[in-house]
């Protein structure tokens, strides 16, 4: 089973040093680190855009940015956060942790791994750089709906190419993860003994392989509609603008689970550690994750209830969407059952994981409400939806990412995260997150549409509150930077191999920080 990779043949002293080490590296830990740093930079970039948006929305009227730039900011905020921050962050975790968790020496395709990462910076440059070309960045919303996206300037073409490049990167990363998990597990590690993080990533990788080409197809059709006279989405030429929405959301809904399933995996690693009790319902967790993934392919049109679907279509997509609540509920119940009668301590990772369950589930409830088609028709394209998807993407994916970062930071840096600063980061984030996004439910219900730079006067109070919360939330994220820099510079308590008292799994059998090469001798799992 022990595949000998070229990387193992020479030890790390002989590799290039300095910048070239990072450009040429095929080491999964180096690549994982680069993914994580890249995603954090993009997170800050997307955050600056979000804060500019919130500054404009602080009070009614146009003050900070013109509507054109405002629309560019909302669009790029979405694209940057989804494709630049959240997705690469999870791939970073996968790179670092999957080989360590399954006892493999590296990822299956080490050179392709390097290429998967190094595709991302050019894509980021295309996206961010599009602000500075004539006409500015695309302002069609991150969903890039035609015919509006057909009207855009060259910033739109840059976004299309960026999406192509990031799609290729994601597909290569996903293939790598699938092959690594299926072929490189240590002897004795059967599929049903695998840590849940690996399971959720395996399923996520299949989702990526299935839907990223669909997105690439959709944006390519936009490109040819824009420049080569095709009419895929133009009714005057026999096309249909709504066709784009079907294709986009056939990608877009699985994409939602691509961004949350690995988060479920991280939380499922952390809760048992700090409850000092095995994960409740391991098998049902695996089945629930698979069910969510399969269902995610048949619910896409719930993003399109207002396009005027046939009655049968509305009913089908409503029922299918409601069904997703069942496996998602199973997961939440399993986490709580894992906590039940445990012996819990609340170090920073556990705080984030518990916070995740609490706030993510609120996003789940609003998801249920959104699933009811007649209600959705009222709240579609309002701030209610903005609140809903930030509850699942920020309080869901992002909180889980932070939980994982604090959990594995000792393995990455060899130092325990500073508990005091980490806890400050958690409580500030949790409180400011809710100040920012909870009022948005009220705004949406009362009738404030999304993607507007200006609004009617009755929305003024809650918008001001949300803007204050947003600035608090944004600044709180610098606390995280402080924790990580401190640990990376070798300050703080030294971590042992098993950094947390009750941590289980192969990753805790190697020293902290994990040496450059691990599991050169294949471990055996009993």
């Amino acid at each position, binding site marked *: 089973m022990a595949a000998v990779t070229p990387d193992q043949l020479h030890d790390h002293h002989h590799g290039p040093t300095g910048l070239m080490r990072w450009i040429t590296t095929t080491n999964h830990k180096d690549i994982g680190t680069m993914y994580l740093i890249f995603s954090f930079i993009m997170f800050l970039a997307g955050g600056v855009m979000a804060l500019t948006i919130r500054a404009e929305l602080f009070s009614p*009227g*146009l003050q900070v940015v013109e509507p*054109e730039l405002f*629309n560019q900011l909302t669009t790029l905020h979405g694209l940057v956060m989804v494709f630049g921050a959240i997705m690469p962050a999870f791939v970073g975790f996968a790179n670092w942790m999957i080989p360590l968790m399954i006892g493999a020496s590296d990822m299956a395709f080490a050179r392709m791994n390097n290429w998967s990462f190094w595709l991302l910076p050019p894509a980021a440059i295309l996206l961010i750089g599009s602000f500075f070309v004539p006409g500015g960045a695309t302002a069609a919303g991150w969903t890039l*709906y035609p*015919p*509006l996206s*057909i*009207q855009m300037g060259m910033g739109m073409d840059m976004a299309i190419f960026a999406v192509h490049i990031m799609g290729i990167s994601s597909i290569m990363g996903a293939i790598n993860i699938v092959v690594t998990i299926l072929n490189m597990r240590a002897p004795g590690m059967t599929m049903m003994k695998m840590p849940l993080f690996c399971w959720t990533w395996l399923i996520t990788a299949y989702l990526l392989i299935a839907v990223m080409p669909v997105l690439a197809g959709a944006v390519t059709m936009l490109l040819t509609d*824009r420049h080569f006279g095709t009419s895929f989405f*133009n*009714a*005057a030429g026999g096309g249909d*603008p*709504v066709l784009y929405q079907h294709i986009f959301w056939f990608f877009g809904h699985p994409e939602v689970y691509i961004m949350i399933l690995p988060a479920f995996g991280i939380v499922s690693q952390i809760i048992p550690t700090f409850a*000092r009790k*095995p994960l409740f319902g*391991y*098998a049902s967790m695996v089945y629930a994750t698979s069910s969510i993934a399969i269902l995610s392919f048949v619910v896409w049109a719930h993003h399109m209830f*207002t396009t*005027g679907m046939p*009655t049968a279509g*509305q009913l089908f997509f*409503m*029922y299918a969407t*409601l*069904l997703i*609540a*069942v496996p998602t*509920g*199973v997961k939440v*119940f399993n986490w*709580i*059952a894992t*906590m*039940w*009668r445990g*012996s*819990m*301590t*609340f170090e920073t990772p556990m705080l984030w994981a518990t916070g995740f369950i609490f706030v993510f*589930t*609120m996003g789940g409830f609003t998801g249920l*409400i959104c699933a009811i*088609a*007649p209600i959705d*028709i*009222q709240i*579609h*394209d309002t701030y209610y939806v903005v609140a809903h998807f930030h509850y699942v993407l920020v309080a869901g994916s992002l909180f889980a990412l932070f939980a994982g970062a604090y959990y594995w930071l000792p393995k990455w840096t060899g130092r325990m995260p500073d508990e005091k600063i980490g806890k400050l980061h958690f409580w500030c984030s949790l409180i400011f997150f809710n100040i920012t996004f909870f009022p948005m439910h*009220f705004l949406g*219900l*009362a*009738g404030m549409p999304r993607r507007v730079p*200006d*609004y*009617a*006067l*009755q929305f003024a109070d*809650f918008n001001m509150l949300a803007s204050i919360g947003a600035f608090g939330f944004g600044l709180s994220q610098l606390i995280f930077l402080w924790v990580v820099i401190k640990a990376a510079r070798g300050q703080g308590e030294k971590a042992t191999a098993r950094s947390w008292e009750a941590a289980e799994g192969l990753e805790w059998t190697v020293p902290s920080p994990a040496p450059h090469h691990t599991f050169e001798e294949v471990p055996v799992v009993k």
Partner: protein
Amino acid sequence: MSLSGRLAASAVLLTASQGVFAQSRYNFQPPVTTVAEQIYDLHTLMLIICLVIFIVVFGVMFWSVFKHRKSRGAVAANFHENTTVEIVWTVIPVFILLGMAWPATKTILDMRDTTDPDITIKATGYQWKWGYDYLQGEGEGIRFVSNLSTPLAQIQGREDKGENYLLEVDNPMVVPVGAKVRMLITANDVIHSWWVPAFGVKQDAIPGFIRDTWFRADKEGVFRGVCAELCGKDHAFMPIEVHVVSTTQYADWVNGLKVASIAQVAADDRDWTRDDLIARGGEVYAAHCVACHQASGAGIPPAFPALDGSELVKGEHAGLLDIVLNGKQGTAMAAFGGQLSDVEVAAVTTYLRNSWGNSVGDEIAPDEVAGVRTR
């Protein structure tokens, strides 16, 4: 007084009640149709169900969080599965979901029933205004364009904002109370969405396709909505205002418009001097062109080209008329042929050729526009 001026004046006279839009801050706006009422009740039901689940689930979690702590001497149990419990918490949610799906299904069937309308109105989304065509029923043949009436000075903070800031239009849509109104929704350029919250109606306006929805307002009053689908620069500035009036008031409104419209046609059928055309063209420009090309004619290049100094504007009549009548594919420049009369096209093109730095000094006559159209 122009047609649009009469429209606005008559609508304002008809309605004394204040906007309902402003009343809601935490929840849906007070419903005025049976569909909106059903949606309101569905949402309340969902909130209650979610609240109960929330209390039960997080009651258990926080009990555990506080009781089962190592610091309180809790010793970890070692159970990790229980088939019975797992089946129970899979099956119970299914039944809860069925309870949610049943009333929702009834509401959907009701929302989709657009048969037997008393009045049919087509709403067309334009960048960035709404056009209304009364197609069937009392008022058949009425058509007008509805623009935001909030002054730019309020938006830019140079004046105090009015009570209905961004929710007011020059020509509101008027319907009689108690009549079943079928709305045909479409768009001319990009996707918009016609949304009046108090009616429980939101329907995307898709260029090249017509979708329908309906409402029957049970209460007189002014009801306000906004465009709900991102449609470009001025997406936030194309509201919807519907006045629901008594049947007699509605009949008066329809008659008043018919008289005004006949007068307008008669007034347009005359020889136009250049100065008359320029004056009328200024009004047309302010209603249809100014959002993109700006009052100064400087546009917002490269998306919205400058008209001041434009060779196309100052060149051959044919080129200018072609782009105004037929628009330009792949850009926000709409085809105004279907929206503007011959006089209006002649007026606005004459205005363009003789405004700002443009001083061609000629005029384009309505007959010339009619000639180009028939070609």
